């Protein structure tokens, strides 16, 4: 199927998210869309899929103008999409999620679950994507959920498949698996639009690359272009992909975690007997595929999740049973993984969010009432210092772009004296330019003698920041390795291999991405 987008334009309020975008997708090609956060990639694809209505422009299929006003139109035109955010109903089983919208029924609208199961099994066999049709989606780790999403998109026999950042939550091995599926689809004539921030993946699979910046197509690139070239095209200036940092000068251990065990609400052991140590002046990165206990580890450190066993000490003080407020006051800074959920209060102003955990203390509060003037003064200073782009400090944070929201959280945490900084996915959803800045700030914090614990699923980020890397798998730390450990080895450890196994295996079976 030949697909052409012509002059597509979409504005949100005064923001032009897509500005007269033209794009041609040839049959059987893998077309990569590159662009920084907020460039407008998802917006464009959402218009193609009928989730958003373009203000201007048209969509042509095989040369014919079509109107796609809802996803059902898109499905009818054999367009499939894997969305950036999971479009799965967490409380449904895999089979229910997959049959949703195209249910096979017995007479009277009664669901034919057998057929759904058969379909799931058939597809998962054909593409080698193993899933249990009876499992509840919310019980599955994100990698498997992503697999479900892909199967869901495949059931429609799409001629054009849109994959919007599907790899963000996958291990290198799982990414390999996905690349295999994409190749298989391409063979059978399906065209694929593939969105990712990971330049290595682009280079591995793309037939064609289109770069979008600030809602406009700024050019095409060949898969043979270097990562630096692609990054420059994305951001519009030369980007330093490597953070400039001096070697760490670690001092005494600040955080000591011993035998930490966390049982989650469903009774699963999320963190399993973990021992860790973070010293002043070093960055320890906790690597791992999402859902392997890193989130719970970070939350346990902050007292947000009760600890079932083990101890947490900060500078000699046993914090295991202290509440979150005490820990924050004791000098722990925290950047939560899901910032929209845990990091800020969307309806609160920028100024209020900048003192969300400081408002009680002088100078912002005098025990009873708030010092509004001090809160404003602080906000003005932080906004300037962290280059937070906002129309005003009294606007709600929800009106800021994702990257700027993240900066609000980081500005708050980094602007007070810390002994330990715990940051989960500190740069997720932040554009490359801001990443540079934030990374620099985190390294500065380290150099000031703060112990830093970074939780990240991004090997790039780990490579950029870490002094040491602890890899987590199924709640256990499978090994603590130096920062310069090869990607493939880390990837294997993230899938559960021990340090030595990973080392051997990586040499024997290099992955597509590891070799680029």
């Amino acid at each position, binding site marked *: 199927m030949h697909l052409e987008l012509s002059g597509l334009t979409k504005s949100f309020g005064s923001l032009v998210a897509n500005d007269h975008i033209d794009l041609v997708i040839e049959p059987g090609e893998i077309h990569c869309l590159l662009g920084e956060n907020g460039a407008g990639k998802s917006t464009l694809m959402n218009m193609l899929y009928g989730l958003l209505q373009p203000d201007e422009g048209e969509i042509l299929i095989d040369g014919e103008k079509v109107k796609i006003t809802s996803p059902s139109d898109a499905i009818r035109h054999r367009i499939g999409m894997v969305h950036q955010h999971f479009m799965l109903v967490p409380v449904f089983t895999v089979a229910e999620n997959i049959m*949703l919208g195209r249910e096979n029924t017995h007479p009277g609208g009664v669901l034919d679950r057998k057929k759904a199961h058969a379909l799931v099994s058939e597809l998962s066999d054909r593409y080698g994507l193993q899933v249990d049709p009876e499992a509840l989606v919310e019980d599955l780790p994100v990698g498997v959920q992503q697999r479900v999403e892909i199967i869901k998109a495949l059931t429609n026999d799409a001629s054009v498949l849109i994959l919007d950042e599907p790899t963000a939550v996958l291990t290198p091995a799982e990414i390999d698996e996905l690349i295999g599926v994409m190749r298989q689809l391409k063979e059978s004539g399906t065209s694929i639009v593939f969105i990712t921030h990971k330049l290595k993946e682009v280079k591995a699979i793309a037939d064609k690359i289109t770069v979008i910046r600030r809602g406009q197509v700024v050019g095409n690139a060949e898969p043979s272009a270097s990562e630096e070239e692609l990054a420059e095209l994305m951001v519009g200036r030369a980007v330093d992909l490597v953070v400039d940092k001096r070697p760490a000068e670690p001092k005494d251990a600040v955080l000591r975690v011993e035998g930490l065990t966390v049982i989650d609400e469903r009774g699963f052991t999320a963190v399993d007997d973990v021992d860790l140590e973070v010293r002043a002046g070093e960055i320890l990165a906790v690597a791992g595929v999402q859902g392997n206990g890193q989130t719970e580890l970070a939350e346990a450190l902050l007292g947000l999740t009760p600890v079932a066993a083990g101890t947490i000490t900060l500078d000699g003080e046993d914090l295991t049973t202290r509440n979150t407020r005490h820990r924050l006051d004791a000098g722990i800074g925290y950047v939560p993984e899901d910032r929209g959920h845990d990091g800020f209060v969307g309806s609160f102003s920028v100024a209020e969010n900048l003192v969300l955990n400081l408002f009680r203390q002088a100078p912002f509060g005098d025990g009873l009432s708030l010092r509004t003037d001090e809160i404003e003064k602080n906000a003005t200073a932080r906004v300037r210092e962290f280059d937070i782009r906002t129309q005003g400090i009294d606007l709600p944070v929800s009106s800021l772009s994702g990257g700027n929201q993240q900066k609000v959280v980081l500005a708050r945490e980094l602007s007070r004296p810390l002994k330990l900084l715990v940051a989960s996915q500190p740069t997720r959803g932040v554009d490359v330019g801001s990443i540079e800045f934030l990374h620099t700030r985190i390294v500065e914090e380290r150099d000031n003698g703060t112990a830093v614990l970074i939780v990240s699923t991004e090997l790039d980020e780990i490579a950029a920041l870490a002094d040491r890397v602890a890899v987590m798998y199924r709640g256990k730390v499978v090994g603590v390795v130096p920062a310069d450990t090869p990607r493939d080895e880390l990837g294997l450890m993230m899938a559960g291999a021990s340090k030595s196994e990973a080392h051997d295996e990586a040499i024997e079976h290099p992955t597509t991405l590891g070799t680029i």
Partner: protein
Amino acid sequence: MSDTTPDAVPAAAPAVRQIEAPAERTRRLRVGGLMVVFALLGLGLAIFTKSGKATFQLVSGDFENNLLGLPAQAVGLILGILGVGAAVAYVLRRVPQRYSGWLAAALGICFIGAFLCWAAAGKTFPLANQFQGTLNFATPLILGALAGVMCERAGVINIAIEGQFLVGAFTAAIVSSTTGSAAAALIAAAVSGVAMAALLAVFSIKYLVNQVVLGVVLVVFATGITGFLFDQFMQPKADQLNTPAVLSAIKIPGLGDIPFIGPILFRQTILVYLMYLAVVVVTFVLFQTRWGLRIRAVGEHPKAADTVGIKVKRIRYSAVLAAGILAGLGGAFFTVGYAGSFSKEMTAGNGFIALAALIMGRWHPIGATVAALFFGFATQLQSQLQIINTPIPGQLLLMAPYLATIIAVAGLVGRVRAPKADGEPYVTE
């Protein structure tokens, strides 16, 4: 799957549990503590039970035959001890986790048994009537709660059950009085319920009104409008407009003759049978049909439903309107279903109790039904106890069903989770 990844088992697969999650432990101790208190209370009652026989009537109004005479104190003591056993077993985790719910249920039965032995020692307690009354109280609550389940599973909060009840009751009364037809009355009640539901649907789905606000307002509106129409039209011509014929009980051949439960369950009016049907149908529809799957999908994650081509708003409209039928019928119970003529505000807060049952039942049709039955049981028990003259003061007894609900919710049900998108309008750009 590449051979480097050992298997496809979820990374967070249930590990063997050696350590109990702190939240789980807190819950076990809370529920267990409550159970121990009740177990001891039951035992205490048994100790202070008068000697003599407690007689339980197994057929309503039959004082000669079908009586079950039990030595009150002995039985009470046995039940009390069993109850203590159940509570202790729960606290000490002597049974596998998944059977612990049964322990709580067992304790509940033991406690109620011991309590009844204490209250009925030397007297006759109409056991059959206890269940009969439970059903009477619960019927409209179940219909209302099911209506709520339908709406809220689709993502539309329904606080307006009370209003739907009132309008249903009013319409049924007026139509039955003017046409004399029970069928017409029930249909009219259902239609009026749908009309109220349509207001709920249009304002919440189309005009994006905050659904909590909307529900409250619709109750006020229904109170006002039925009150106004009653004052201006119905009351002045009460002999023509407010003399509905009450549905008569229909015995189901065969089933109606089953001893004990037959007369309780199967000699009822069509409305009660419709209620049974509704429980089955709503459960079946929600969990086994295409429509139900879609309803639950739009209530949990409307955008996900949208991306697979489901018309979110259309499903929501259909669910809310269908729920209107149930709520309207629930309202009809108050007039043609049971008590006859209409009077102002006659639903007396039952719609809010239905709302509570819906939440207590965790938005599940069966759960809501059980919660409604629980409430009906408690209400009926207090009424019966007032008659057999227990030492408990009447006003305290009147409070009992409400206190029991609070204890059940705080002690056993705990934190509940509504459908994720419940109350959130779906907006597309």
